[in-house]
């Protein structure tokens, strides 16, 4: 049910349902669980539902939570894809999609800026070089992601580790 409310991102809706309506998690639990989910690969919201499901009723809980989260949106988006396949050639549809695509790109810029802001404010010296390096390597030079991650992530983690100890 949460999933279908989540246009362009489900996280705020998930928080409302889990913390405020169902009280399955306290606000602190939610933040802590989210930070775990953010340091693992995969969509944060999917990881979150795995975690909540697993703590509630083991692997069955996780499977149920993910199926509930992912099922309906996948059906909707496939339907949209099929419609686009059928009517995508129409001039009006193409016009709207061109505008939509430009807007969607802007949305991602804003997401990136929002993520960057707290990092740059708190620790610009250790964050900025890695933001820039990842951008240049993957965005501009289009290097394959696995190699870039293999180099940058351990380096960045090592620096944070040194700082902490």
């Amino acid at each position, binding site marked *: 049910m949460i*999933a*279908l409310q989540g246009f*362009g991102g*489900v996280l705020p809706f998930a928080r409302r349902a889990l913390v405020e309506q169902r009280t399955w998690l306290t606000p602190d639990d939610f933040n802590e669980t989210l930070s775990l989910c*953010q*340091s*693992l*690969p*995969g*969509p944060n*919201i*999917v990881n979150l539902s*795995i*975690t909540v499901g*697993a*703590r509630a009723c083991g692997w069955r809980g*996780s499977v149920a939570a993910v199926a509930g989260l992912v099922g309906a*949106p*996948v059906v*909707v*988006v496939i339907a*949209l*894809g*099929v419609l686009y396949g059928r009517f*995508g050639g129409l001039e009006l549809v193409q*016009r709207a*999609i*061109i*505008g*939509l*695509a*430009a*807007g*969607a*790109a*802007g*949305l*991602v810029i*804003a*997401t990136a*800026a929002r*993520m960057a802001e707290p990092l740059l404010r708190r620790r610009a010296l250790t964050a900025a070089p890695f*933001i*820039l*390096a*990842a*951008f240049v390597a993957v*965005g501009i030079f*289009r290097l*394959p*992601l696995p190699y870039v991650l293999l180099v940058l*992530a*351990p380096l*960045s*983690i090592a*620096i*944070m*580790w040194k700082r*902490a*100890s």
Partner: protein
Amino acid sequence: MSAYWLTLRALGVQFGILSLLAFGGANAVIPEIHRQSVAVHHWMTDKDFAALFAIAQSAPGPNFLISTLVGWKAAGIPGALIATAAMCAPSCLLTFWAVKAWDRYRDHPWRAAIGAGIAPVTVGLVFSSAYVLVRAADSSWRLAVVTTATAAVVYFTKLDPLWCLAAAAALGLTGIFGTP
């Protein structure tokens, strides 16, 4: 094996790997999805990719739905299902396992170092995604204005991003951006 099966297999392998690399979610692996589906496998053009991403963004649900649409474009509905499953399953298994470890070692310092270390790399990757999408979507200065305006509105205000997308699509309907 027929070409169709090879495509399905490529989708499964590709998104299965991406699943484990998607620190920070699907937005961080857009450049890699784009590279694979446009340059490596030729499943679609740059413009198709921008259009599918736009549809995924304006659909309700998590933003890894771009993988569903790429799978659909490459190999129809079976492709969509395989790409979605491959994008979810590996990271789900990892998370399931990690939750148990996490609950056991919740205060270990390496945990914080990993989280803090990965964060800036993820941000750089999301900027890369933005750059790839801008290059694919903005073929004229007018479209670049729309992108800039959307970014500014979403960053500086609390307006629901969906309104910005609707406005951008409505502007498109008027035809001021032309048709491809």
